[in-house]
């Protein structure tokens, strides 16, 4: 496969691609700096979202523009100008007010002035277009080794300071009045936060640019708060999202030659849209307390759907491996002993898939049985999933008979044809019963979806015939049902 655009030729072997990527020094620098930046941005971004200070982040980015332009004018690297200007402006903002977000008018005024100043500096400098362009939209491939070291040092510093002030800052961000009454220094914390934000922004501007800064400072954290309600988890998720955007963006840009900023912003955007589409954790309805047994049951079902997704992932992976192995050794397809030799890896993965699938089916049955004790609505799903378990046992038996028959046939004929003969119908019967079990999972999921007002559960129930998708969406639904509980007066109630 030749390159897309004017980029380096792309091969479908990702290992080779990463090796190619790593062989360019500018790319190594970009990845290293990008990693440090993503970590900083992900962590600070969480507090930006929590404190609703995105406007302050925006303004700091713009003041960074004039700083970078000034640095270019005097012949220094833009990052030093960025750091100097954003930190000064952040300090000013810190003394201006307790919560920068409440100061829209002042920040807006300053923001326009900073941008104008930047324009002046840029026009004083001769190489007008290119410099302005790279500050506004980022120039990831021009990062020097010195700058990588500086970025890493800053990342370590930011991490250390955040670790120190994490709890007071979290408290002050979430519940300002109580934090003040408890004697937390709100002004100091706000100042510290803004300076950290300024540092994170100064480095992020290098790869993403002033105008696209939100993609790293806000979007990852916005995704994280939709996925989890635990602060530390949210920080980690935010960092991971920022990392996928930066790494993915850099990877794609190398093979296409289109700007990295676009791909970073694009990946972050797609992730955000995906999470919004699924709906995350968010649902605001009036809730009632749930019976402990019911919670238990739903929790088991949640684990069942998670295990189901795992089984599907393993199944797909195993099938892919098997295909690759069979393509390499076409003769192994109908010869079990050759299969053991040439496709052992695939067989092991498929075996794990079977185990995970069985565990999932067992959990489904146990979950619906718990709920069936509370309401008759769930007795038929419980019955169907039990039938499904029987089906799995029959499938396993049939498969064993068939395989042993085929294997024996290779050695000697005796009972082998009989084993083959009985194995196949058993296998068929097993699969049919197993499908009844899947039907039970879908019916139960649909009814719980009605009770909890969970569209994800209902979608998952309909899509259960596209297993990976169905189980994954069901998992999200069960999890949300567990967290949210049923709405008051829901239609299909567990009495």
């Amino acid at each position, binding site marked *: 496969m030749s390159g897309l655009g004017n980029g380096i030729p792309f091969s479908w072997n990702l290992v080779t691609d990463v090796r190619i990527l790593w062989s360019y020094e500018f790319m190594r620098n970009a990845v290293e700096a990008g990693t440090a930046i993503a970590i900083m941005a992900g962590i600070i971004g969480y507090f930006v979202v929590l404190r609703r200070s995105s406007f302050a982040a925006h303004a700091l980015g713009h003041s960074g523009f004039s700083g970078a332009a000034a640095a270019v004018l005097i012949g220094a690297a833009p990052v030093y100008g960025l750091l100097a200007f954003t930190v000064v402006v952040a300090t000013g903002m810190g003394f201006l007010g307790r919560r920068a977000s409440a100061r829209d008018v002042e920040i807006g005024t300053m923001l326009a002035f900073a941008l104008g100043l930047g324009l002046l500096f840029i026009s004083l400098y001769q190489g007008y277009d290119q410099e302005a362009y790279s500050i506004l939209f980022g120039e990831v491939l021009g990062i020097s080794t010195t700058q990588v070291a500086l970025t890493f040092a800053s990342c370590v510093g930011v991490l250390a300071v955040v670790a*120190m002030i994490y*709890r007071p800052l979290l*408290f002050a961000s979430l519940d300002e*009045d*109580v934090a003040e009454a*408890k004697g*937390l220094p709100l002004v100091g914390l706000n100042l510290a936060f803004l300076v950290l934000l300024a540092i994170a922004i100064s480095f992020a501007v290098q790869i993403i640019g002033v105008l696209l800064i939100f993609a790293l400072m806000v979007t990852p954290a916005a995704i994280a708060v939709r996925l989890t309600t635990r602060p530390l988890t949210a920080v980690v998720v935010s960092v991971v999202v920022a990392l996928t955007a930066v790494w993915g963006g850099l990877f794609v840009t190398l093979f296409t030659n289109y700007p990295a900023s676009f791909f970073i912003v694009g990946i972050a955007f797609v992730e955000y849209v995906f999470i919004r589409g699924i709906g995350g954790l968010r649902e605001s*309805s009036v809730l009632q307390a749930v019976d402990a047994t019911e919670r238990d049951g739903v929790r088991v079902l949640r684990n069942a759907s998670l295990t189901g997704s795992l089984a599907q992932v393993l199944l797909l992976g195993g099938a892919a491996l098997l295909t690759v192995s069979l393509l390499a050794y076409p003769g192994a397809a109908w010869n079990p002993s050759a299969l053991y030799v040439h496709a052992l890896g695939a067989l092991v993965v498929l075996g794990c898939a079977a185990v995970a699938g069985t565990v999932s089916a067992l959990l489904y049955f146990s979950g619906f049985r718990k709920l069936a004790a509370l309401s008759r609505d769930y007795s038929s799903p419980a019955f169907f999933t039990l039938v499904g378990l029987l089906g799995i046992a029959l499938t396993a038996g049939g498969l064993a008979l068939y395989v042993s028959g085929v294997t024996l046939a290779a050695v000697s004929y005796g009972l082998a044809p009989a084993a083959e003969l009985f194995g196949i119908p058993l296998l068929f019967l097993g699969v049919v019963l197993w499908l009844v079990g899947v039907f039970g999972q879908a019916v139960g999921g649909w009814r719980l979806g009605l009770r909890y007002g969970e569209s994800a559960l209902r979608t998952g129930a309909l899509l259960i015939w596209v297993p990976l998708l169905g189980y994954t969406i069901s998992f999200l639904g069960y999890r949300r049902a567990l967290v949210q509980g049923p709405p008051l007066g829901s239609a299909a109630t567990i009495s």
Partner: protein
Amino acid sequence: MDADLPHPPAYGAPAGIPRRLGSPAVAATGVEVRYRNRIVWKDASFEVLPGEFVAVIGPNGAGKTTLFRMLLGLHWPSSGTLSVFGVRPHRGNYRIGYVPQRHTIDQDTHLECDKLVRLGYPGTRWGPDQRWRPLQWGPRFRLAAEREAAAKALEDVGASDLADRPLSGLSGGELQRIFLAEALVGNPEMLLLDEPLSNLDIRRSRELVETIHGLVISRGVTTLLVAHDINPLIKCLDKVIYIANGRVATGRPHEVLTTETLSGLYGVHVEVLHDSRNNIVIVGGEDERGEEGA
């Protein structure tokens, strides 16, 4: 609760600190308060005894929240003396739990209730003075104690089942219980609750009052509660602080909420009426100087 009765120790109160029985939790003598150079109220003298359940009543802007801010050490009296547990009010007083009227938390806050409650936990106390160090710099190692305290606080406000729910899905009454737990988690000896009953319907506000009254009894925590309407509270109250017209009147509910006292306070005729269920209606005076002050 009578002031002379021996006072039960607050839940988890640090051992070895003698509680001076009978000494007031709040004592004010001749306090005058200014807000932006305007007198909010003056000549206020009152006492709140440990373990009392006190309602702070008055029209909007009469200076009820200002009283709380003074007790928290965030606002200073312009003259007179004010003491909390025998000392001048100061910021970061670990003996006070505070629930402000407005929180920055709303429907967009994706946070587990338990996590918010835990933030109120004082954390590591060291040194002989038992003074809470509000800045818990660095990592903390007493997670288990914190978890237990949060669970106990949630249980005491009847919100154990909300622990792992996000704040964004809660109703107004549930949210108030979580805020109450957040204030309780540090085992305070005094609770300052600013309008916890606003935005609640009659049934929910009665339930919340019962919970709070239960805390006053079981934990022996002195409680000051700002409210607009005294009726849901009247059965449980030990004392009323009525702030209006730049003046402060205190006493037992039936002493303060009379036609004579309130007329004297407002300087115009105010009628206190009782309905068949002994609910109280105050007629006149409310809008007299209601817009002023802070």
